[in-house]
């Protein structure tokens, strides 16, 4: 059993079901992200772990103790809110010290611990400021210091970086991760940003409509999604559907236009199949009609430049595919006909429209 153990948690408001029996174990010292679009129940799950929300059913255990019936203030948690929720009438120091004041911590110990926490987030110089006098990133750090000063059993973060602009967000990601590792804190991090989830986490939970769709390492989630939903949500994906052809040396997916794509992974026995590719799995080649008869073909529409990398937008019939440009490959021009070489990954499960 993990540091946090959630079993069969349900939550409904009237006819609306936010969580449909969620089971989740968070290991000690682990950084776990809950990823999903808004409305998937990820924040509700976090708030239930914190005790800010009451589950309709199921149990929550923290550090081996059943806390399902405990109110928030009795659980030993640190919580960071999306909009920081700092107390505007108190200084940075008092914002951080309130938890210790409530526990009647002796004065000198309180002072030492608050300053230590502020030092960890590099804010000791601003202890006397009011929250309104701080930048967004600094407010974020105060919120973090306020949560860790109590040495909580678990740290719960509800989209804490989404209110920051992009550069600051990336800096804070690095800081957050190193702080979490230094303290060895069991951390649950809710986000709708897949890059954030992949880069920070030991494991990622992908949620969909109140249920866990997949739980795994960032690598497994990205490269081996269990469903079209996960493949779509966790990164850029292009889907092929067709009929499975099994033969020596691997299976292929025969598409409607007669071309075929090699597939790997969990390939269904035969019949209809669905597979996807990521932009960096694909190699584009100039089309040689004499040689390559059943390779999928496309037309380069344009090159999108992002600075450190660039993508080709390739039209395949009505659809568009993104392909990461390889630095060593010859440059293609808009209008060039290309052959699409890739090995797609087979998916099982629902057959939603592409």
């Amino acid at each position: 059993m993990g540091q946090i153990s959630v079993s069969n948690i349900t939550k409904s408001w009237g006819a609306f079901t936010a969580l449909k029996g969620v089971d989740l174990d968070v290991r000690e010292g682990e950084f776990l992200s809950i990823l999903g679009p808004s409305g998937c129940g990820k924040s509700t799950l976090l708030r239930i772990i914190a005790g800010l929300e009451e589950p309709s059913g199921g149990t929550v255990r923290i550090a081996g103790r059943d806390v399902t019936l405990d109110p928030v203030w009795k659980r030993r948690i640190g919580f960071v809110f999306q909009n920081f929720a700092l107390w505007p009438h108190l200084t940075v120091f008092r914002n951080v010290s309130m938890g210790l004041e409530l526990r009647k911590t002796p004065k000198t110990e309180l002072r030492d611990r608050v300053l230590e926490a502020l030092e960890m987030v590099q804010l000791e110089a601003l202890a006397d400021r009011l929250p309104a006098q701080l930048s967004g990133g600094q407010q974020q750090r105060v919120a973090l210091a306020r949560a860790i000063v109590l040495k909580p059993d678990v740290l719960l973060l509800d989209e804490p970086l989404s209110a920051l602009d992009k550069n600051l967000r990336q800096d804070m990601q690095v800081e957050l991760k190193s702080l979490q590792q230094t303290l060895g804190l069991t951390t649950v991090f809710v986000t709708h940003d897949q890059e954030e989830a992949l880069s920070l986490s030991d494991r990622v939970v992908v949620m969909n409509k109140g249920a866990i769709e997949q739980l795994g390492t960032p690598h497994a989630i990205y490269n081996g999604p269990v469903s079209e939903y996960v493949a779509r949500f966790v990164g850029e994906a292009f889907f092929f559907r067709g009929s499975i052809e099994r033969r020596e040396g691997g299976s292929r997916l025969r598409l409607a236009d007669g071309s075929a794509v090699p597939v790997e992974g969990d390939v269904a026995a035969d019949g209809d199949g669905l597979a996807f590719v990521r932009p960096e799995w694909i190699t584009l080649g100039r089309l040689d009609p004499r040689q390559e008869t059943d390779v999928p073909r496309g037309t380069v529409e344009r090159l999108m430049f992002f600075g450190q990398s660039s993508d080709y937008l390739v039209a395949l019939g009505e659809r568009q595919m993104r392909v990461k440009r390889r630095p060593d490959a010859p440059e293609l021009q808009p209008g060039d006909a290309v052959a699409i070489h890739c090995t797609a990954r087979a998916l099982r499960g629902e057959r939603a429209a592409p």
Partner: protein
Amino acid sequence: MKRPGLLTLPAVTILGAFFILPLIWVFILSVLATGPTGEVLREVTLQHYARFLTDSYYLNDLLLRTIRLAAIATLFSVAIGYLGAFVIVRAPPAAQSWMVLLVMLPLWVNLVVRTLSLMVVLGRTGPVNQILVALGISARPLPLLYNETAVVIGMVQVAVPFVVMAIYGVLQSIPRQLEHAAMTVGATPLAAFRRVTLPLSLPGILAGSVLAFGINVESFVVPILLGGGRVRFMSVAAYETATVSNNLPFAATIGVILLVVTMAMLALYQWAVRSAGRPTAVIQAG
């Protein structure tokens, strides 16, 4: 619009003509002498102020009582008003506008009518006394009318809606999440309220109490009707001095003294609350 200052012209005109000018006239009146039959003389004097400030009847029985009753009524108004505002803010959003409407409802009824109905309620055979006797809390009907208690009850009834609205506005602007944040660091709901919501709602309490005190201290209908002439009150005394005693300058003096004392008290009060509410960071030095 090139000169937005022009837009304030109607307000300035109305305030100037019907408030500032009469007020200046009252000041002038208060330093003019009164003739033997009550006529106003063209003779500057401070005799009215001297008369008021040296007579313990005027000072204690009139001025101090007025301030004391207004202050007590303000205390109750703010306590009751805060509770009311709090209940409304924590009610479901759909219910909130109805509850606000309910609070404002009394303001649609004429003050005299409201105060007269309060006389019925507080009378010897009124519902309050009937309940007290029926429950055995009191052996016989209590004298609830024509005394200070009646006046205070009347003033509270007048001021509470204003206090509710002043505090409701401020409470509504405090995110609920701030209390939740306090609970995540171990505060019980009561501690979270005391450490977060209460200090943040201080501006509302300040505004509400200033409003209530201002309304109460100039009360006129309430002390006349519920005090029944037995509870002396500044505004009533000024009115009687002007009409019954036909001494306009002394009536003006009573008005000026009430105004000056009230403004001084409100200024002192605001200063006290502001400096008490200022955030402190002293612990760190310790």
